[in-house]
């Protein structure tokens, strides 16, 4: 599969038509999806009609958009009017979007082609993509392994060469962790950079749309297209959107890269070595390496599981069979009706709702929810101080590479630790990107991650671009 930027060039020059590109993507999906299970629905007819419109536009001599003819997969929690959006849950199995998410509107305005919806952990709760009602996604690097999650379908679709770009959402690492596991680029911008209008909510103080792509330059272009203020999302930021790829530099002279103290403690040697190698590479490229202290970042994961579960318990209250979701009309009273209507939630979703509800009970509110919120503020302060000294931080994306399907099913805490390095970005509202950096002894991809402050996505993109270029 060509990169998104190569496709745009080919379509704009007439070397290829958007229809040819779309048919190539459809063929790749038909060939590879039966093994990988990355797409849960392909919008074949719609995508081909859209591609033909783009070709007709070019034939009329009209200027094409920044993503002309690029096939894009969208995670199954992103609304596209007239198409199903199920969050890969039985709860929403028949839900058809009644409006289109702003990110999709912006992709369409840039002449991209929405090719289908991608698999995910149910309601974006998970890091293995095993909780989907459509069955698990397999990692294209090794079909016995998980692709990561929750945007595992989007990551696997890009890694398998079905599409050059896919959208995901990232509440605790759900774009960056699968990107690392599958060997693709995954960026989650800072909180507020991208509109969430039309994204099915999980945890509103942490949810962000992210991009999975095969190159950093593709991620930069898509980010530029979909970012910016949206009147429909009060949390989207007013700040202008830069042309990110225009800020790519040849080398990293003048950039200060922070290495957080203690972040590599307890890691396996393979990943530790890769982070050291990445740091050495950045130094060779002209960056200055600076050790920084972010002492409270180690508490981000427990904060994350309390805060996001509490928010989920509120956000998912709407699936009561009346406003949204499955309706059980056999019930005789309202309480029974609610209970029956909420039965289709899977085990992990139910568990998070129980965790969140429990943390919000009057007995536990102060010591759990309020405490986590306060520690979160201190973690934010820690990162703020670190970014007074450095431009970006370098960390592993995940503590391990992809593991076997079912490997940690009996030990959910081990699964929760898969988000150890990524949930810090959501707790801190930071911008984060995972970029592939080699493989482990079993041939499984390893990702390294850059963090940057909010609205400084150009810095992490530039660091990732240089690291990618040097590979």
């Amino acid at each position, binding site marked *: 599969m060509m990169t998104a930027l190569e496709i745009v060039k080919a379509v704009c020059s007439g070397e290829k038509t958007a229809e040819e590109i779309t048919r190539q993507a459809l063929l790749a999906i038909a060939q590879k999806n039966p093994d990988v299970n990355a797409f849960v629905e392909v919008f074949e007819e719609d995508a081909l009609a859209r591609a033909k419109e783009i070709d007709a536009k070019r034939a009329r001599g009209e200027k094409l958009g920044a993503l002309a003819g690029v096939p894009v997969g969208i995670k199954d929690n992103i609304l596209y009017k007239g198409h199903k959006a199920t969050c890969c849950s039985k709860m929403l199995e028949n839900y058809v979007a009644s409006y289109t998410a702003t990110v999709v509107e912006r992709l369409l305005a840039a002449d991209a082609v929405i090719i289908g919806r991608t698999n995910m952990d149910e309601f974006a709760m998970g890091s293995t993509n095993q909780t989907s009602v459509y069955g698990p996604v397999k990692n294209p690097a090794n079909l016995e392994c998980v692709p990561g999650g929750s945007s595992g379908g989007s990551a696997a679709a890009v890694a398998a060469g079905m599409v050059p770009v896919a959208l995901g959402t990232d509440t605790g690492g759900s774009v960056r962790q699968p990107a690392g596991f599958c060997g693709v680029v995954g960026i989650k911008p800072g909180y507020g950079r991208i509109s969430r209008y039309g994204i099915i909510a999980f945890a509103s103080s942490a949810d962000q749309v992210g991009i999975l792509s095969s190159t950093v330059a593709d991620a930069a272009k898509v980010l530029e297209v979909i970012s910016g203020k949206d009147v429909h999302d009060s*949390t989207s930021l007013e700040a202008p959107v830069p042309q990110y790829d225009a800020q790519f530099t040849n080398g990293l002279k003048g950039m200060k890269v922070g290495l957080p103290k203690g972040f590599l403690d307890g890691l396996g040697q393979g990943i530790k070595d890769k982070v050291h190698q990445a740091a050495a590479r950045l130094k060779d490229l002209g960056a200055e390496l600076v050790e920084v202290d972010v002492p*409270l970042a180690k508490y981000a*994961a427990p904060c994350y599981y309390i805060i996001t579960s509490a928010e989920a318990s509120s956000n998912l209250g709407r699936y009561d069979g009346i406003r949204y979701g499955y*309706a059980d009309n056999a019930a005789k009273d309202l309480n029974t009706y609610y209970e029956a209507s909420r039965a289709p939630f899977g*085990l992990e979703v139910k568990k998070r709702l129980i965790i969140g509800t429990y943390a919000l009970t009057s007995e536990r509110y102060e010591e759990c929810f*309020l405490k986590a919120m306060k*520690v979160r503020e201190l973690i934010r302060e820690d990162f703020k101080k670190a970014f007074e000294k450095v431009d970006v931080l370098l960390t592993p994306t995940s503590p391990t590479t992809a593991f076997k399907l079912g490997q940690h099913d009996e030990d959910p805490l081990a699964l929760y630790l898969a988000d150890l390095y990524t949930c810090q970005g959501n707790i801190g509202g930071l911008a984060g990107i995972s970029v592939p950096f080699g493989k482990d002894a079993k041939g499984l991809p390893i990702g390294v991650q850059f963090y940057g402050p909010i609205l400084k996505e150009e810095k992490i993109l530039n660091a990732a671009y240089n690291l990618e270029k040097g590979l």
Partner: protein
Amino acid sequence: MEITKKDVELAAKLAKMRVSEQEASIYQAQLEALFKWVAELSAVNTDAVKLTNVNHCAHMRPDVTSSDPALAEELRHAFDEEQDQCAKVKKVL
């Protein structure tokens, strides 16, 4: 932090969900491990922290009402039945 099966059942009830005996046992063990981990937060001194929500509200837009007749019309057509300019929804119970 000890979590009992009763705690799980109470939280499930508050969340308007039914959990089986078996589910409650599984969740109890898993929640206990999780909340033990969460208890590590008590090591952090948060006495001076005041929650203001500034981080999330500083850039929020003013509350403004807007009307879009086309959208209103579209929404009305999304329902099968209409009566006195109100959409008729299906009976719940």
